[in-house]
């Protein structure tokens, strides 16, 4: 085939693919335009997860009559004039691609009136071409309606998830902008139902209440003052950190709840999420993540947002400084403000003389401070040393020999986390959580394959009111969930009724201080993390999630019988050496190795 220039409509669709990935991308681009237009109110309306219709209306500046048609041309923008502006970007958009890209893959209707003009312009664009333009009465501001998204791009259409899932993505886009712009009143209507509304009164905390509810918002701490980077750069800090973070008592199963903004732009940055998580070092259970909304303000020249067409990723001129500023600000907030973890509603101490309460507080504070020093005081050299030791240890520890485990005799428990056992080949260290997870997983999988999964009915059915994201996840997995022993049924729009749970979750101690509702949310969050498109694997993944939740946790003291029982059951397993997620369950130190280490040989 000879080389030739692509026709404009093909090139347009290819470029559109980078900007418009799914309905949520359209919402993102349009909401950004509204914000850049100085709107005080942004209304988003979607139908069928945005595939049928997306309408974003604002009361911003509007587009003058003579510029309306040009708005849909590629690389047309009012936000940038020459290349030097690229270093000083203060608007959210600037590439001039959004409207053109959206128009290339859908039918767009635009209605816009600048405040100073009497009549608005109504414009219809199909397949990238303006098919009609006329004057029409309209309120001040701009309303963009996008219909039949991807109808002319079957390849994209195929990859769209269920409407509920797409609606969930849109919900998180809108709530994220509401967080970044508490002064703008946002609303989101999905299939004619109002699902989110912020007040636009400028208070970030009020937006948090609107998103997470009052109960959860009460457990958030405000990040204190301006977390400065380094004092070298003049008097004012290079990076100002603000926002809210959860107390150590509140945590989630995945990192989705860490939301980051740079100059009010929502970004995804693994290293900054990590900075937030690291500030909680030693305060959260393993595998749990904090909930945080962190806003960074910095000189626009210090950050490059023109890295990726969707602007999700940014590049910092001095990444280490930003990382450090975030980590320190969060850590300081935690150390100074974190309350003593509440013991649920356990009866309060009734008659302790005051000085004891104070003394206990002090102890707790000391402990927190010490933990802080530990995390901050350990320097890079220590880290390198630690990594080296770890590598050495990994090299030397034999992964346990044959597939099956030999008969083991339990010796004891270390750190309420590992079981020490002795076998004919030497010493074995068993991770109690991973091992129990494996035992439960094989048992439940066998039951599932023989269609013998047992479930326990709840005394009172629990009502689950889920956010759109999780309710999307649940909707997608409903049939599988019911096959592995849950009894769930829809109960209104985004609510479900939980009538029964798999019996391994009902076993004594498996709930570990949470009720059925919390367990369900945890499992949904675990499901949400992975993106496994194969349906049959999805059910296994679900079983793995249930078993992870039901398994004995690290930090639980086990009696001698319990340990013996666990080791016996692990010996019976088909593949006892890893947990269902692939982490090792057993480490083996051979007798020779022990002899060598002690210099007996």
């Amino acid at each position, binding site marked *: 085939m000879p080389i030739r220039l692509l026709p404009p409509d093909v090139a347009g669709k290819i470029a559109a693919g980078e900007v418009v990935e799914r309905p949520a991308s359209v919402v993102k681009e349009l909401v950004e335009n509204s914000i850049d237009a100085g709107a005080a109110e942004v209304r988003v309306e979607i139908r069928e997860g945005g595939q049928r219709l997306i309408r974003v209306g604002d009361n911003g500046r509007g587009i003058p009559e003579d510029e309306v048609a040009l708005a849909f041309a590629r690389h047309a923008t009012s936000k940038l004039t020459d290349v030097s502006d690229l270093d000083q970007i203060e608007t959210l958009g600037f590439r001039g691609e959004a409207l053109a890209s959206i128009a290339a893959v859908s039918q767009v209707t635009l209605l816009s009136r600048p405040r100073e003009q009497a009549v608005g312009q109504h414009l219809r664009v199909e397949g990238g071409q303006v098919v009609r333009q006329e004057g029409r009465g309209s309120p001040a501001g701009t309303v963009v309606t996008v219909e039949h998204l991807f109808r002319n791009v079957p390849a994209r259409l195929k990859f769209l998830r269920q409407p509920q899932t797409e609606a969930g993505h849109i919900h998180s886009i809108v709530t994220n902008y509401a967080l970044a712009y508490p002064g703008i009143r946002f609303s989101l209507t999905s299939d004619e139902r109002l699902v989110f509304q912020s007040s636009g009164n400028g208070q970030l905390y009020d937006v948090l209440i609107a998103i997470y509810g009052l109960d959860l918002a009460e457990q958030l701490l405000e990040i204190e003052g301006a977390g400065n980077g380094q004092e070298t750069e003049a008097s004012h800090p290079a990076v100002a950190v603000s926002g809210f973070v959860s107390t150590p008592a509140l945590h989630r199963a995945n990192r989705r709840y860490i939301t980051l903004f740079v100059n009010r732009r929502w970004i995804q940055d693994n290293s900054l999420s990590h900075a937030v998580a690291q500030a909680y070092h030693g305060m959260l259970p393993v595998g749990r993540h904090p909930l945080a909304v962190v806003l960074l303000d910095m000189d626009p020249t210090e950050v490059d947002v023109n890295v990726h067409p969707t602007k999700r990723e940014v590049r910092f001129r001095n990444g280490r400084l930003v990382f450090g500023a975030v980590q320190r600000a969060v850590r300081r907030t935690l150390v100074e403000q974190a309350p003593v973890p509440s013991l649920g*509603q356990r009866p309060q101490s009734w008659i302790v003389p005051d000085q004891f309460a104070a003394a206990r507080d002090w102890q707790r504070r000391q402990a927190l401070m010490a933990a802080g020093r530990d995390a901050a005081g350990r320097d890079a050299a220590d880290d390198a040393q630690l990594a080296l030791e770890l590598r050495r240890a990994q090299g030397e520890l034999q992964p346990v020999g044959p597939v099956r485990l030999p008969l083991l005799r339990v010796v004891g428990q270390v750190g309420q986390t590992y079981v020490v056992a002795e076998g004919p080949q030497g010493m074995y260290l068993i991770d109690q959580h991973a091992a129990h997870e494996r035992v439960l997983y094989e048992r439940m999988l066998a039951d599932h394959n023989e269609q013998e999964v047992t*479930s326990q009915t709840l005394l009172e059915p629990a009502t689950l009111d889920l956010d759109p994201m999780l309710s999307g996840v649940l909707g997608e997995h409903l049939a599988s969930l019911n096959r592995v022993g849950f009894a769930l049924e829809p109960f209104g729009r985004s609510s479900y009724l939980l009538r029964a749970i798999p019996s391994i979750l009902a076993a004594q101690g498996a709930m*570990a201080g949470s009720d059925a509702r919390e367990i369900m949310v945890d499992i949904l969050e675990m499901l949400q993390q992975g993106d496994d498109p194969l349906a049959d694997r999805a059910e296994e993944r679900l079983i793995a999630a249930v078993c992870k939740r039901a398994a004995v946790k690290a930090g639980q003291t086990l009696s001698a019988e319990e340990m013996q029982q666990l080791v016996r059951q692990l010996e019976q397993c088909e593949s006892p050496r890893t947990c269902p997620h692939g982490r090792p369950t057993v480490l083996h130190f051979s007798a020779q190795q022990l002899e060598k280490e002690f210099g007996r040989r």
Partner: protein
Amino acid sequence: MKISCLQENLARGLSTVGRAVAARSTLPVLSNILFETDEGRLRLAATNLEIGISSWIGARVEEEGRITVPARLLTEFVNSLPPAPIDIELAERTQTLNLKCARYEANIKGIDASEFPEVPTAETIGGRNNLHLEADNFRQMIEQAVFAAATDESRPILTGVLAKFHQGGLTLAAADGFRLAVTSADVGVDLDESAKVIIPARALSELARISDGEEDDIELIITPNRNQILFHLGNTDVVSQLIDGNFPDYNQIVPKAHSTRTILGTQDLLKAVKVAFLFARDAANIIRFNIVPGSELSPGQLVITGTSAEYGDNVSEIDASIEGEGIEIAFNARYMIDALTVVGTNEVALETSTASSPGVIRPVGGTDFLCVIMPMHITR
């Protein structure tokens, strides 16, 4: 402080209050027992801040005083002494308690009593609603309720037992996520208004233990702000925090009707369930009931099955008098055993409707007790 008392009395008092000593506490003084002279008697007290127990024993008081001493050491020491008088003297300056009994002597270092939280007694609590309950009767009611209370803290309300006083009667109710127990009795209480409180199950268990063999009535005092309850026995006061909140409306959970009623010998059923449990232990405790109504020639039967995929299975048959249709339903054996153990009558009725609706255990004759047990399922 200078007193003398009998070893048996002191040992008994220490074992009574010992259960309230905090097992692991950040506050060292909570693992101590308070020793205090009180109007010619010796008062012992312990608390873990959730419940507190005070016990008085007869003693000859020569000199007043108070001190706290480590519970475990003191209890084990006193239990090893011969049954003889013990002379106890406190060295105020060093806060050391000297105990002499026959040829044994010990000095035990204490902590100043002013650091010990105040444990309210019937005199100091200043409550109202003084009610008198017959000890044996109340103890049986406690046993019929506490077993169903939740042991994990996810819903603190459910770790308590609802006590509802109404026109001459008392109802206790407890539930975890999967079962509910309700017991009522006419206790001859005369109350103007009905009262509802939620008492921690652990406090009631301790009370049941302590009141064993008690002949006098138990006097019950609720503080005016309804945050504490005190049980006054002859020589002992048990005080507990009350749990604040609303107990679920259990009347909605108790089924109003049933389609099958099976009457069985309590001991026969309990035994068969225990046998099936041996096999069900590693299969989520699931045991299956097959209820087969009788005909004119043969009596009705309950067939109980316990199955272990790994080890084998077991089938037991019990004769039963059955009204209604046959049904197959599965339960957690442990919940069945708990309920049958406290039902307290020779015969017991099991009421069922469908395999997915709750089963209800009721005594035949006897006390007003019921236990709702949610069934288990096998997903196919």
